[in-house]
């Protein structure tokens, strides 16, 4: 009886914690729907009755959102595409072949994956500015691809290794070329891995702030995170329109939340799989 009661109470506790944890996300959406007059009152409004989409219209009105969206989408597409191709080829190399230098390459990949943007961004800024590519799509794309490729290789390596080479050989016995066997048999089996890695690259490129800040100095070429930061920066000099800031934040966050929920499981297992299996 008491065990059952404890379980009940713990269940209530779990729900209370859940409410606290989700509160900031809720607050973002809630504030985004409320008019500024309501937000300026001393007593916060906890449920957006009578809310409207006015803040969204306002945030979108001056066109800077669409410029930033264009920049973010271009960079993200380039990064996802190149990342997948490069990482896929490298993953095939390290999971299908044993060759001299393989271990050094794997170590290099793992080390690079840990390097923080803060440790290299000044040098990357100098490099990109010396070739005149500040404020371009190419600059951040190159740096992001280099930063994301290692973990993508690591993720795909697991998928490629999980597909038995025997399957391919069976295809070759039946008259397919090695390349044909690979494309017809292995590649379709890899699709989930490619989707997961692609979403990972998307999230990294879409959310990145540090490198974008130094490589995209002019306001006309901002990505969405920099555009969003502009609202907070502006608050230093004038009254902040928090409804609008929250609407802008919601716009930036929604695609990320959707994609993240799609691949969450694979990301966790990619980072700690060895340890979980113990």
């Amino acid at each position: 009886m008491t065990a059952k009661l404890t379980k009940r109470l713990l269940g209530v506790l779990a729900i209370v914690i859940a409410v606290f944890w989700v509160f900031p996300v809720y607050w973002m959406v809630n504030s985004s729907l409320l008019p500024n007059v309501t937000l300026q009152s001393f007593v916060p409004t906890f449920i957006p009755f009578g809310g409207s989409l006015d803040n969204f219209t306002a945030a979108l009105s001056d066109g800077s959102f669409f410029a930033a969206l264009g920049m973010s989408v271009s960079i993200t597409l380039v990064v996802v595409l190149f990342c997948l191709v490069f990482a896929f080829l490298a993953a095939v190399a390290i999971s299908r072949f044993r060759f001299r230098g393989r271990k050094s390459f794997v170590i290099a990949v793992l080390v690079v994956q840990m390097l923080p943007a803060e440790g290299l961004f000044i040098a990357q800024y100098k490099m990109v500015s010396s070739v005149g590519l500040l404020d371009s799509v190419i600059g951040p794309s190159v740096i992001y691809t280099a930063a994301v490729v290692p973990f993508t290789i690591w993720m795909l390596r697991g998928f490629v290794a999980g597909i038995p080479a025997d399957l391919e050989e069976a295809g070759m016995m039946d008259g397919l070329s090695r390349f044909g066997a690979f494309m017809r048999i292995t590649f379709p089996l890899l699709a989930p891995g490619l989707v997961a890695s692609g979403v990972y690259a998307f999230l990294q490129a879409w959310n990145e702030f540090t490198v974008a800040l130094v490589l995209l100095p002019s306001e006309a070429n901002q990505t969405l995170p920099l555009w969003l930061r502009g609202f907070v920066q502006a608050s230093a000099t004038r009254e902040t329109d928090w409804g609008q800031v929250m609407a802008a934040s919601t716009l930036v966050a929604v695609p990320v939340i959707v994609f993240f929920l799609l691949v969450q499981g694979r990301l966790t297992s990619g980072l700690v799989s060895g340890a979980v299996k113990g």
Partner: protein
Amino acid sequence: MSTSTAKQTSSLTFKRRKLRAPYLLLIPAVGILVIGMGYPLVWQIVTSMQEFGLQQQFGKPAPFVLFDNYIELATKASLWVVVGKSILFCLVTAVVTLAVGLALALLMNAVSKGPRLVLQVALLLAWSMPVVAAMTVWIWLFDRRRGAINYLLDAIPGVDMNRFDWLENPLTFFAVASIIVIWMSVPFVAFSAYAGLTQVSEEVMEAAQLDGANGWQRFWGIILPMIRPVIAIVFLLQIIWDLRVFTQITMLQDAGSKSSEFDLLGTYIYKLGTKAQDFGMASAVSILVLAITIILSWFYIRSLLKEDES
């Protein structure tokens, strides 16, 4: 291995082509890594040994000073204050994240399906928030005049938090930063630890219970040793990730003050590079950050390598 049948039938040229195949496959990845990471890294190592200030920006050749920048750094009190603050911030944040994440994992394990699902969805939503959006929301929540946090705290009888400015004083500034980072990082820890917990066998737990072990004993004696590998890796990752909080600190400084008291390593380097235009020193500090990260990562990298070999 996959090559066995091919080997028997292959001619010499085919063999040679096969030997070359892995290297060809690696060319694009290695190429992009050399351009995006390798070259900047080499430039940074070279520059950290040069005097590279404002004059060099305008074309004056940079004289080599070997380790002068490092020596200057080592004797610079302001750097050690920043290093100390960064390490303290990172350790406190990582330890609290680990403790809370572990507690939530145990909670998920103890409750029935309904509440567990609610908690998991809440954690996933927090986890998926983009850093910059999370920062704007938290800055709004901690807003001095109309923030929900001051309002709620003020509503507690006897607490006066009306118009309390969290970002004014370094201690509360970093406490806010830490709370935000913890909020964002706990879900990963909780889910990883929970994944580990589900591997702990029911029978062992029941046997321990029959033998009279209480909840606390079962936690320390069975659960913790069994999930220790996950905990070790997750903790290490948290420490490494909590050293890179440039985005969070920069945005809190946007909302508060840019004064150097509020700097951690990331913003310190950024200001050296952009404001002071001292690339020699900025590079030297960057190398320090990279060195700390690689030393801390080594254990993690080794564990991944072991996985690769198996």
